[in-house]
């Protein structure tokens, strides 16, 4: 199958395919970060995670329209404001949901799964009623359009680079929050020993709520970033949820580094296979491989042996 291509063309194809894989990697990382916080640190399965991302995307859509209508002069920077707002709105909804629903279900993980699935259905229907069933796209600022020619044959789209930069930035931010802030220390303490953490004066209830809120907020930011490379529909969130969970579980639920490593391996495997096979078969094989490895090593890629 390679006979039709010259060496340089082949190199360019691999480079572009690799770049496509990097964008997919960024997307996975963005999706998985929020979930890694909520599932990895709290052990809570949030099936509505995808809908929190979509909420961020819709917020971005609204902000973009607002700027286009009222502040066209500074349209170029609307995205940064939208991203902040997406964090606040998704995070705020997260806080509310934790208070109204999740906190009553901490001891029943399977029930949490079902309840949050119900929440995801409700959110989907609300999006459909408010924004319509059709997918909506945002207007991308001029500076993000076009592509950057690296060589004669290799071009990379600027919005793709932007999403990659965002993924790196948000990963660093989450890392700093988890491992350098007082909140992060409290979250990790609770994860290790809830009773003890409570006994030494950590407000576990509030920390849980904040953790859930921050996880949802990060999901909102991820959704906001996605508007740069694709459009948004009411049911788009559901498409992500399996991938996202597999990325987090595959990485070893409690490990941030593991999440990023697993996002990288899954995205690269999928985009390389996509070159040889049809998209659906590449997806099937990737998922099967991940599930197969998880069956052999259920604790994921990165996990410690702990004393019970």
């Amino acid at each position, binding site marked *: 199958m390679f006979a039709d291509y010259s060496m340089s063309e082949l190199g360019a194809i691999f480079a572009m395919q690799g770049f496509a894989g990097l964008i997919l990697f960024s997307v996975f990382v963005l999706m998985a970060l929020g979930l890694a916080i909520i599932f990895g640190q709290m052990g809570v399965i949030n099936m509505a995670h995808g809908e929190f991302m979509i909420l961020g995307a819709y917020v971005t859509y609204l902000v973009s329209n607002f700027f286009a209508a009222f502040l066209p002069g500074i349209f170029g920077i609307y995205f940064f404001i939208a991203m902040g707002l997406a964090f606040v709105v998704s995070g705020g909804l997260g806080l509310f949901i934790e208070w109204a629903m999740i906190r009553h279900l901490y001891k029943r993980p399977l029930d949490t799964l079902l309840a949050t699935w119900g929440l995801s259905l409700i959110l989907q229907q609300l999006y459909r009623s408010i924004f319509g069933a059709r997918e909506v796209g945002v207007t991308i600022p001029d500076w993000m359009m076009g592509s950057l020619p690296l060589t004669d044959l290799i071009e990379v789209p600027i919005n793709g680079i932007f999403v990659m930069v965002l993924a790196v930035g948000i990963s660093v931010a989450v890392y700093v929050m988890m491992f350098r802030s007082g909140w992060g220390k409290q979250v990790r303490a609770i994860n290790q020993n809830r009773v003890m953490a409570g006994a030494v004066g950590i407000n576990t209830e509030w920390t849980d709520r904040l953790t859930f809120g921050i996880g949802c907020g990060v999901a909102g930011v991820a959704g906001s970033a996605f508007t740069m490379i694709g459009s948004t529909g009411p049911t788009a969130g559901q498409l992500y949820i399996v991938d996202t969970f597999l990325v987090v579980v595959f990485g070893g639920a409690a490990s941030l580094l593991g999440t990023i490593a697993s996002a990288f391996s899954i995205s690269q495997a999928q985009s390389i296979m996509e070159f040889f096979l049809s998209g659906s078969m590449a997806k099937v094989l990737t998922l099967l491989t991940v599930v197969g490895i998880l069956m052999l090593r259920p604790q994921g890629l990165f996990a*410690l*042996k*702990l*004393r*019970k």
Partner: protein
Amino acid sequence: MNKMNDKFLLRVEGLTVSFDGFKAVNDLSFYVEPNECRVIIGPNGAGKTTVLDLICGRTKATDGSVKFKGQELLEMREDQIVHAGVGRKFQTPSVYEDLTVFENLELSYPKGHGVFGALTFKRDEAVKSRIKEIAATIFLDGMLEEKAAYLSHGQKQWLEIGMLLIQDPELLMLDEPVAGMSVAERKKTAELLNRIIKDRSVIVIEHDMGFVEDIATRVTVLHQGKTLSEGSMERVQNDPKVIEVYLGH
């Protein structure tokens, strides 16, 4: 099998387990004879419960060997170890709260343990009379139809002991059997244990020294995952090393 093997029911040799670098049990060896009552004592974190976990297969050892009647237990699954004749009582009472006392005992009855066996298990007269007999031994004969959830803490402990008795193990391992009991319950339990340890080997973890003195054939003192001292209660009590780390406190 040589003579050495015949003398001991359980041979623990070089047993080691490490959790992420921390050795909770470190190169531990001890031997238990038939009909011996061995008591393990030691300060918190000495690795007492971990030793029982390793013998009954709940925790996987990093190194060493545990031979029970010549069989290597470290290579067996928990249920296979049970069938080999090792019974284990946990520290906190662990019974089936949603089931009745009768059903709790019935599940422990050593018959019908495969999938097919469990499907076709019949509650015949032999089963019923055995359960009644055990229930009488553990002071619960009037409560067979009661859900285990409604029992008192002490009664749950008894029920769990009963669930072990019905298995009729050759080696019985008890983790703090009188912890958390009222004085009256404690007395009754001591009497019960004294009765049931007669025809089998027993390993007990216990803090109550009066109780230990009462039942122990031999005592092993654990400290930081290693044997600090071993012998009769009297010998151990007078061992200066033991006094320093444990009894002296």
